[in-house]
């Protein structure tokens, strides 16, 4: 039996036959499909327009391929920030009701956080969604990637993705312990800096090695999330006991348990599988890192940067889960945000928000002088909650610092970890978090 990557194994399972990288699949059945309120409304309208006559011809009512495999998650600019956005959410909600699709509420969370926290996506599954950061689910050991509107409408109809080439894999073998004050975000910004914005194009970024094994799930989500910034097809991490513990807990919140069938879906790369490239990364050499304007791949050690900052955003699908808020709260506890800086905190989901409230983190942020908003994508989408003016400088824990991403094309965006964000909020300039970490804190 020839060896295979986790990606090849997942596609082989879905196809019921052995496939390898480079194979062209005419129709790939997808296990899970989710939509945000940006692309959901036009995808629904196109689905009705392009396929209704086919259903009518066949004597059937317009019906999605399988409502239990689909979810709608309004998250980008909620609570709704415009009449058109509200119309779109209404359209999704009416369609969801009519079709029996799960519709989440505004504020339930960012789609990629909900998808994992609600165990909507499971290890070994193929998941697609109308957002490039769908690759976040790779941390669960699922093959997950973004699609456009047209693929979304096609999938609503048939549950299949067409003309899919099984991607090759680039393996990142990460070893070494993190220095104090270094987290998953610093590691992935460092990797982006090495690879460049197009460095992993068309390939799956698979992360392995002792450093990845030692990361908690939140850190793994961060690493997979940002891998699309080097144009990876997606990212993936082989599932282990931490993955299964995370998924079991997520299932238990829905009064479900992990079945043998679910566990049987999970796959792992064989050690001698064929990788198109192997990149060795020494995590112990990574310093706290920021990416400077205007590219996520423009990574520099934080010790070399001290630019003034007007806005700090702690949020987004990249870095707003429990461990992210925990480290920021440790640094901000008993301290104040600089008079020259606004700190905006947006937890990644309602569950994370409520957890942060129950555990006193929201009070720490509020006492420090932060603005705290209900869960959504916030200013990372450049439409509401902290839009930047020309000349503004923002340090964000999100994933994209393109010119104009968060407002004016003449603003400057820096990317960093929650620890860098907290230290920067205190100083009003890009700051090294290490001096604020409590003694003994890594």
């Amino acid at each position: 039996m020839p060896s295979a990557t986790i990606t090849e194994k997942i596609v082989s399972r879905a196809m019921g036959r052995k496939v390898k990288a480079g194979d062209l699949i005419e129709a790939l059945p997808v296990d899970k499909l989710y939509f945000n309120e940006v692309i959901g409304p036009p995808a629904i309208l196109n689905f009705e327009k392009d396929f209704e006559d086919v259903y009518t011809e066949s004597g059937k009512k317009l019906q999605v391929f399988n409502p239990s495999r689909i979810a709608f998650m309004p998250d980008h600019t909620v609570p709704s920030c415009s009449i058109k956005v509200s119309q779109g959410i209404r359209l999704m909600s009416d369609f969801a009701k009519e079709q029996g699709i799960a519709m989440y509420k505004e504020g339930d969370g960012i789609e990629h956080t909900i998808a994992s926290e609600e165990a909507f996506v499971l290890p070994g599954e193929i998941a697609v969604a109308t957002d490039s950061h769908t690759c976040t689910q790779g941390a669960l050991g699922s093959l997950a990637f973004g699609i456009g509107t047209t693929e979304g409408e096609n999938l609503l109809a048939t549950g299949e993705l067409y003309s899919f080439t099984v991607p090759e894999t680039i393996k990142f073998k990460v070893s070494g312990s993190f220095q104090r004050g270094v987290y998953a975000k610093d590691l992935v910004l460092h990797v982006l800096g090495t690879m460049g914005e197009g460095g992993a194009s068309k390939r799956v970024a698979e992360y392995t090695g002792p450093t990845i094994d030692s990361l908690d799930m939140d850190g793994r989500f961060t690493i997979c999330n940002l891998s699309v910034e080097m144009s990876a097809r997606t990212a993936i991490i082989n599932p282990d006991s931490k993955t299964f513990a995370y998924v079991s807990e997520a299932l238990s919140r829905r009064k479900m348990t992990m079945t043998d069938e679910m566990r049987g879906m999970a796959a792992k790369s064989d050690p001698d599988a064929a990788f198109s490239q192997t990149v060795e990364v020494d995590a112990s050499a990574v310093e706290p890192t920021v990416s400077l304007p205007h590219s996520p791949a423009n990574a520099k050690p934080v010790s070399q940067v001290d630019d003034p900052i007007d806005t700090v955003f702690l949020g987004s699908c990249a870095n707003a889960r429990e461990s992210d808020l925990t480290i920021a709260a440790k640094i901000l506890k008993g301290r104040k945000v600089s008079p020259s800086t606004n700190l905006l905190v947006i937890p990644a989901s309602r569950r994370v928000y409520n957890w942060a409230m129950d555990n006193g983190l929201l009070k720490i942020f509020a006492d420090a002088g932060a603005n705290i908003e209900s869960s959504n994508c916030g200013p990372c989408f450049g439409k509401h909650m902290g839009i930047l003016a020309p000349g503004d400088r923002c340090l964000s824990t999100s994933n994209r610092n393109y010119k104009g991403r968060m407002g004016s094309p003449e603003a400057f965006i820096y990317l960093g970890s929650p620890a860098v964000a907290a230290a920067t909020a205190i100083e009003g300039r890009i700051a090294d978090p290490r001096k604020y970490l409590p003694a003994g804190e890594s």
Partner: protein
Amino acid sequence: MQMRGTVAKRFEDDINTDYIIPAALLQESWDKQFFADHAFEGYDPAFGPACRANKESIVVAGDNFGCGSSREQAVYAIKYNNVVAVVAQSFPDIFFRNCLNNGLLPIQITDTSGISIGDELVIDLDSKSLSDRTSGVDYPIVATDAAIELMKKGGFLGFVRDRLRHKLNAQPTRASSQ
């Protein structure tokens, strides 16, 4: 099958879809032309007028054109400004597929540096070649046969309708719930 056009714009490497169409506009319309009216608004506002100056325009870029966000509106923004093709050294997958789905030709050649604004290009999908009629240089197009087929068809829609018809007819009572 041949397509012709005039090079109306040149871009550097790593043009992301946020540059092509800013996020703040994405939810404000379900009309594709709306996005063409705002193409490259914050990055290169001259884009629309330059492309609309020709009946059939072509955009030329370096590596990794269309990276970042999956927004298909980026393809509408380009296509509905009279653009028939984007010629670049590489495309990330999501943007490439979005192009195929909308009949905007994503043409990959290994080096675009010799193509200038104003050049007349002829794209021949059958022979997989791009001919710069102004400079007289021919370039082989890098593409799989499957991608060329989809470029000729202008997308998957007909195929997907057939697949759906087949699925619906295979299920006598109601649409598949498998």
